[in-house]
């Protein structure tokens, strides 16, 4: 298995400037600026093998975008080593970008005023895609992404979901070996999300494209990625299978009970009361400590109940807990002040 991305002790420090405002502010900024240094990414390491589909997640400001921008060559690392597909991205930009595709959910690479088909045609010429390859890929993509209804529509009048589908198509027409997807499902409805997930799965499985998927939507990761990398405050907190993560930190189950009357404190052994709302009570318990049937037994012997339901704690909640309680994290973040 050959690694396609190798990242060693990668660090990116930003100077954050306090700009002068007012009439000559822009001019003064050229000569005299105060700044502080922020380590957006600090000493991170990982390797990604050809053909993998990896989820890269973390809360806002964790360093996800900074990492992606270094991987795509838009940012020069402050220190550390970075190799993608045999290239050093920021040095070999023009040669390197031929082999990658990138979709930034918030922005479009398409031409705002042109119909989708014209945009795709320009992409064909920019990447020098062979006619047969172009036709073949476009044929497959327009079916999976359902592009036909808006092929003639100018990009500016597309809905967010349509634009995202068109952007995904544009980024993959040249058969890149590696694709960076940054928030490809942001702000989309369930149906559009599913189409995009199907597409991602298709290019990974059928075309063996390596994919690094950055997202806030943990259900994207749960549905698509075996491996997940979690970054927060510029450091990698976890790199491994999502299952492992959930086993370690999730594992909790929820039991919601609707009692026949409002009890003051309906205690159950080995279960924790999370909330009480009138006659409705929500418990949480560890799968390994106590079984659901045991709890139901306790309930029916001690109390009168109307209804009950048992389910797993949603993945979103588990991940949120990891972020909020900083379960994976134990070092304070570095921040220094400087004046030029």
């Amino acid at each position, binding site marked *: 298995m050959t690694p396609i991305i190798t990242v060693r002790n990668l660090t990116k420090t930003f100077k954050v400037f306090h700009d002068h405002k007012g009439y000559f502010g*822009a*001019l003064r900024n050229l000569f005299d600026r105060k700044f502080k240094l922020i380590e957006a990414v600090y000493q991170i390491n990982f390797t990604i093998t050809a053909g993998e589909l990896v989820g890269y997640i973390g809360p806002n400001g964790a360093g996800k975008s900074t990492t992606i*921008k270094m991987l795509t*060559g838009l940012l020069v690392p402050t220190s550390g080593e970075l190799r993608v597909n045999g290239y050093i991205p920021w040095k070999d930009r023009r040669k390197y970008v*031929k082999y990658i595709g*990138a979709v*930034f959910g918030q922005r479009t690479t398409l031409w705002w005023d042109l119909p989708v088909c014209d945009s795709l045609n*320009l992409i064909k010429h*920019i990447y020098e895609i062979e006619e047969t390859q172009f036709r073949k890929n476009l044929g497959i993509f327009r079916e999976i992404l359902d592009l036909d209804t808006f092929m003639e529509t*100018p990009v500016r009048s597309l809905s967010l979901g349509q634009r995202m589908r068109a952007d995904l198509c544009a980024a993959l027409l040249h058969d890149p070996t590696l694709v960076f997807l940054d928030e490809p499902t942001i702000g989309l409805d369930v149906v559009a999300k599913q189409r995009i997930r199907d597409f991602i799965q298709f290019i990974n499985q059928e075309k063996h494209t390596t994919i690094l998927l950055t997202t806030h939507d943990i259900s994207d990761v749960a549905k698509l990625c075996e491996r997940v990398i979690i970054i927060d405050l510029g450091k990698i907190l976890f790199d491994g299978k999502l299952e492992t993560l959930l086993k370690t930190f999730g594992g909790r189950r929820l039991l919601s009970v609707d009692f026949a009357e409002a009890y003051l404190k309906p205690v159950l052994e080995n279960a924790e009361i999370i909330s009480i709302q009138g006659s409705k009570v929500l418990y949480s318990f560890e799968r390994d400590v106590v079984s659901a049937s045991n709890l139901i037994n306790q309930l029916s012997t001690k109390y009168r109940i109307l209804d009950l339901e048992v389910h797993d704690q949603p993945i979103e909640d588990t991940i949120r807990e990891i972020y909020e309680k900083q379960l994976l994290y134990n070092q304070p973040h570095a921040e220094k002040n400087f004046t030029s």
Partner: protein
Amino acid sequence: MQRNLTLLHRLINIQIRSQLQYPFSFFMEILGSALIQSFFFISFALVIVRFEEIGGWNLGEVAFIWGMTEFSFGLMDMIFSGFDYDYFGPLIRLGRFDQLLLRPVNITLQVLGSRFVLRRIGKIFQGAVIFLFGLSQVGVNWTPLRIIYIPILIISQVLFFGSLFIIGATTTFWTMERLEILNIFTYGGSEIMSYPMHIFPRAIRLIFTYIVPAIFLSYFPAVFILEKTDPLNAPRIVSFIAPLVSLILLWIALRFWRYGIKNYQSSGS
């Protein structure tokens, strides 16, 4: 090179097509802008007709340099509009420039091809009319050199203004916002080039000789073509260095631009 030119052609072509999507509104826009722009000249002409001349130059002679400058600036503004910092600043700020960097094509070519404002035809047309009016009024002593020099001069002016646009765009790599002060050189420069430059105070003339060498692109060449006496008493050779000046400025502008690209770094978000 061949491939780059084909691609540039394609990029521009497709924009022209989309701008012509609504031909009537496009035509009205051009007509409107041409009319508005020509009022500047008409009001100036009304004044100069009253006083008969300005600094020894009559209406036809001023129309000659005025029209040529308007024509060249309009042409430049159409071709180099990707470098217009009112457009280029937001391109950087909103991260669209990053998208261009992710494509395997020369970045200068992409910026050049990213915007082509066909509407500028209004200004170009208006400039051409004023220029031809000027030509009809002045009796030029046509020699082969004078005939050849006029198109060379126009190309030089286009490159000259284009270089100023490139320099302006490059500064936004650092400032992110446009530097209002640069308008003095671009739009101010084209304004000043529309008049015989010896009428301006010495300080202004010096700025537009040594900092932004606009004087070599309109006043001095016009002195030669129109056979005017030059109260500045400059050596005759300065009438002929317009192409050289614009090429040197273009070289400087492209060096600065490449330096900017090389040092450009995206934001962290």
